[in-house]
């Protein structure tokens, strides 16, 4: 299998992947049943995890300079980087099929079961977790925010996975210096308080145990999916009004959709052309990369202090507000 593993890695690199690792399926022993590799392919023996980096200056400069724009991030993150990942996964799947191994390429993050489904008890759950696959394949480890941090690019990459029945040469799991030192910047700079300071989740992958903070995916999606929080990006396209989720209590489907439509009616045409990018992701630089990677200007954190509420700012219901752009 050494030659096949080498071929797969070579093809990944030829197709613009920056990181590639392989996990034997045994490392998924504790994975929930419905998102286990064998739930997709009962004959699964290996999971290939790959990542492509973001152009670093694009990532850092988004929203900065006189351009004050995040259009590049929007296009390259959602379309081009996604297409590169799909292309690499598809080509690798085809090679493995040509060799006679059943193989299923997985989706890039962005498809969800919004509500709990059968034994899946969490909201906003994909059918497979690329970030967990990345950790299992040795590309990195989890930060407090529950996302995968890599040694080489920190948070500045996107992942994809391929499940195959081929028994490929496994890579070791990451065992270098900790990539998260619990600086808490991710928690502090989240404008919707999606990351809990108190509740944690514990899980095991292979021989390693990880603990990260519990993320409320409804809150995260409030900004990331429906662009309701100008400070995380939409402001740079001219959307200075937003709706914050209630500070307390659970967010419901109805609340989420109603906020989406309300925002669209207030913002008008621009609502169809905005983008938000998680501040937790942008502000996280692992200790090993500090000084090498630059921090983006944290407009988000500064502007969060500068909100003018134009509706009743109650803790129990969504509240409309206007953000004052920084001078």
């Amino acid at each position, binding site marked *: 299998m050494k030659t096949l593993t080498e071929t797969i890695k070579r093809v990944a690199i030829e197709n613009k992947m920056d990181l590639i690792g392989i996990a034997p399926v045994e490392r998924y022993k504790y994975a929930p049943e419905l998102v286990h590799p064998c739930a997709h392919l009962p004959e699964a023996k290996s999971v290939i995890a790959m990542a492509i980096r973001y152009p670093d200056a694009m990532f850092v400069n988004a929203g900065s300079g006189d351009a004050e724009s995040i259009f590049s991030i929007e296009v390259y993150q959602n379309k081009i980087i996604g297409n590169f990942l799909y292309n690499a996964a598809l080509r690798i799947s085809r090679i493995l*099929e040509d*060799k*006679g191994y059943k193989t299923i390429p997985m989706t890039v993050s962005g498809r969800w079961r919004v509500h709990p489904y059968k034994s899946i008890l969490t909201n906003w759950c994909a059918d*497979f977790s690329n970030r967990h696959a990345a950790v299992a394949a040795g590309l990195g480890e989890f930060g407090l925010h529950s996302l995968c941090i890599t040694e080489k690019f920190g948070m500045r990459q996107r992942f994809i996975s391929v499940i195959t029945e081929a028994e490929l040469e496994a890579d070791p799991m990451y065992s270098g210096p900790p990539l998260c030192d619990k600086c808490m910047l991710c928690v502090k700079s989240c404008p919707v308080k999606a990351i809990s300071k108190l509740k944690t989740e514990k899980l095991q992958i292979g021989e390693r145990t990880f603990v990260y903070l519990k993320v409320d995916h409804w809150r995260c999606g409030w900004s990331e999916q429906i662009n309701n929080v100008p400070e995380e990006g939409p402001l740079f396209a001219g959307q200075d009004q937003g709706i914050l989720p209630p500070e307390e209590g659970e967010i419901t489907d109805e609340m989420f959709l109603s906020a989406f439509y309300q925002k669209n009616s207030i913002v008008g045409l621009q609502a169809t052309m905005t983008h938000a990018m998680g501040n937790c992701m942008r502000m996280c630089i692992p200790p090993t990369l500090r000084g090498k990677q630059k921090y983006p200007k944290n407009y988000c954190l500064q502007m969060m202090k500068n909100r003018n509420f134009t509706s009743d700012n109650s803790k129990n219901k969504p509240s409309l507000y206007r953000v004052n752009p920084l001078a």
Partner: protein
Amino acid sequence: MNCELRKAIIESAKNDCMDLVGFAPGSRFDNVHYRMHPKAHLEDAKTVICIAIRYPIAMYENAGRTKAESYMSLDSYEGNAMISAIQGAAMNITRIIEDFGFKAVPISLGKYRVQPYKDISEPWSQDFRNDVAAVAAGLGEIGLNGVVITPEFGTRQMITSVVTNAELQASPLYSGPALCDKCGKCVKACKMRAFNTEKTIKIKIAEKSFEVFEKDQWRCMWSKKFMLNAEMGPKLHGLNVTIEPPERQINEEDVRKALSEKGAKGGLQTWYTYSMRECERECVPPHLRGKDLVKVHSERVQSQKRREVQI
């Protein structure tokens, strides 16, 4: 007859992940509606190049059927990776043809005129017949379900075409054993009852002719495009909302009302769902039934026994 160009087209298709490429002379499109004819796109069209990319075999076979109970991979590869690959391949072929000094028009996928248009009396028409092009270019045959079946992948490929005024050596028409034995599984698999088994339509392509069931495109689209039947896929993503269509002919207003009802009942999950075309998945040509399709494919690749249209 432009042998170098033909070779360059095959090489380009190969680099772009295509599995099949065939060449059809314009004369094989004589029975096609003039608005969907190659000459409707390029007045002096002489050849149609038809390309196909297979679905990842286990992904297609397992979608919604294994413990993961999910169509997310199928949804994303069909809607992103494969469509980008095949349209990218068509674009690259077009550019090569232009570099050789000829004209070429790449054909689209998945675009429809919802209502009848001028002298096209059918709703949901496309501007070109990729199915006819596939048969004319020797890729395969048309089954009773109206879908292209190839001996290599059955119905499990995506197909598009490039129309050119370059004269290129034609591929032979498929001449092997019949790829549809009228097993009727497609009809049984369609929960929308879109096929009219009482009425067939004859499709004539060069010297080949096929009988296909008349299909009510509105009933088909009710599930395939508008995802209004939970059993065809949405249920597995957590969207358990089925809206029954009226027994009479469906119209646009019916679809609008149904979509609004689905949105009200299904909420946010309506944004993230998929509907499977079981009439296609259930259609496995006789020689591939019961076989391990990955193994069959791999043995064919390794034995180098290939049809002319296979890359």
